[in-house]
């Protein structure tokens, strides 16, 4: 071969054109043709796969892919938007209670309304309806609108009657009992809140299971009786007004222990859990541990070693 500095060297294009001279022998083309015939015949008689129809269909539908995709995206967005409106949580209706020791009015309508979980009950119209009159224990409760200075315990008291099974009848009986037109003014202003319902339900459950505990805990809900002799025989749920002295409940040693347990247990558990998590994080982030973990991997030559 000539030296690299020779002036007679070809150009790159000329050198690449040498590749055109690389051609197979004529015998190769005979073999090529026979193989091609065989494969062509095999491809003709070979059954087409079932998905080939879908592939052809997708090829035909390819030009419409963009507008159809955009329309599908718009439809999906519309559905999601509408679904978001549908899933708006409606607070369950409850019946504001202002009760006195008067006659019960329209009890059946109130019960039906609560069962249907419909909107707020129009108490004014119920009060005007003809009713049967019974003498029953009444639920004495204060409402937010009636006394805006009420505390939290008093605010949730109106909804308690919905969730106390054993008091349902009497509560609803007392619900509309003797509702006077002037007492019902401002009832619509009572705030509806699901959390209040749940709190009231839990409170009522606890109240029914262990009345003494709640009394010990300082809840102003207590079993009391009205001044009436007939009503005094039946318990009613009463919420004490703010300016009224909370009822003195005897604190027995058992109640004190239970109350201490209720107040102390969640805090203790959460504190222990928090301490455990902090300790685990501290251990994981420890520099020594990280260094030891990194040192477990060793790379030497073409070997990767892991020490345990």
């Amino acid at each position: 071969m000539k030296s690299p500095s020779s002036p007679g060297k070809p150009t790159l294009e000329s050198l690449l054109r040498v590749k055109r001279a690389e051609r197979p022998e004529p015998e190769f083309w005979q073999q090529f043709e026979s193989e091609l015939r065989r494969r062509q015949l095999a491809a003709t008689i070979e059954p087409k796969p079932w998905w080939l129809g879908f592939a052809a269909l997708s090829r035909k539908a390819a030009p419409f892919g963009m507008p159809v995709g955009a329309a599908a995206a718009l439809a999906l967005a519309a559905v999601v938007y509408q679904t978001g409106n549908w899933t708006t949580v409606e607070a369950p209706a409850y019946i504001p209670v202002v009760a006195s020791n008067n006659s019960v009015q329209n009890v059946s309508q109130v019960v039906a309304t609560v069962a249907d979980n419909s909107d707020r009950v129009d108490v004014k119209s119920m009060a005007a309806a003809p009713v049967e009159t019974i003498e029953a224990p009444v639920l004495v409760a204060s409402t937010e609108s009636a006394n805006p200075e009420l505390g939290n315990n008093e605010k949730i008291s109106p909804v308690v009657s919905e969730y106390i099974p054993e008091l349902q009848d009497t509560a609803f009986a007392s619900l509309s009992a003797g509702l006077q037109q002037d007492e019902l003014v401002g009832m619509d202003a009572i705030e509806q809140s699901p959390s209040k319902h749940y709190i009231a339900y839990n409170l009522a459950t606890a109240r029914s299971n262990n009345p003494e505990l709640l009394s010990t805990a300082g809840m102003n809900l207590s079993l009391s009786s009205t001044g009436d002799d007939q009503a005094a025989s039946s318990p009613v749920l009463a919420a004490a007004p703010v300016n009224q002295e909370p009822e003195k409940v005897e604190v027995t040693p058992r109640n004190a222990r239970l109350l201490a347990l209720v107040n102390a247990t969640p805090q203790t558990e959460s504190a222990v859990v928090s301490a455990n998590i902090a300790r685990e994080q501290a251990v994981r982030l420890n520099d020594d541990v990280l260094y030891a973990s990194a040192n477990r991997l060793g790379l030497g030559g073409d070997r990767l070693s892991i020490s345990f």
Partner: protein
Amino acid sequence: MSITTKALDKTLVASPERRQEADSDMQLVKRVQAGDVAAFDGLILKYRERLFGVLYNLTSNREDASDLAQEAFIKAFQSINRFQGQSAFFTWLYRIGINGALTHLRKNRLRSFFSFEKLHDEDHASEIINQLTDKKSADRSAIISELQEKLNEALQKLSIKHRTVVTLHEIDGLSHEEIAEVAGCSVGTVRSRLHYAKQLLQAELKPYINA
């Protein structure tokens, strides 16, 4: 002028011979589409060497190139009814073959086995080889083999896209517009790839070329 003719003119503007070739190909294609299966043999005979050459330079393996060329002809025959004549038949056939080659090369990226065809001592090749060797050199055949090996190595170092452009332009002699039609890219992209590929090849084949 119809849309088909305009599309053909776009790619074949540089060579009237290609235009005549495309017209004769289209007549054969129409006969095949009409049911004359034997007319496809004319297309096979006309393009088998060129298609094989392109695929051989892409794969550097004669068996792979043979398989890919046969597959390309079979696919073209099966899809001949979809050919509308918006491009020349040979660009359509090249596109089928090169797409198959790209798929094959991507699948067998880690397997590289070269098998060379014999270099026929034609005028151009002889002239180039004479430039590189002494005419009466005893090891002429060894030098030819070495040159073949170096050329194939240099081509295989290119990416598939750059190799395709170099093969179609420098070896098969297609124009930039025709390569753009075959490769499915713009003419500017073809020129850019060709320029970059030539730079790499010049670096690889520096001892054999006049830089």
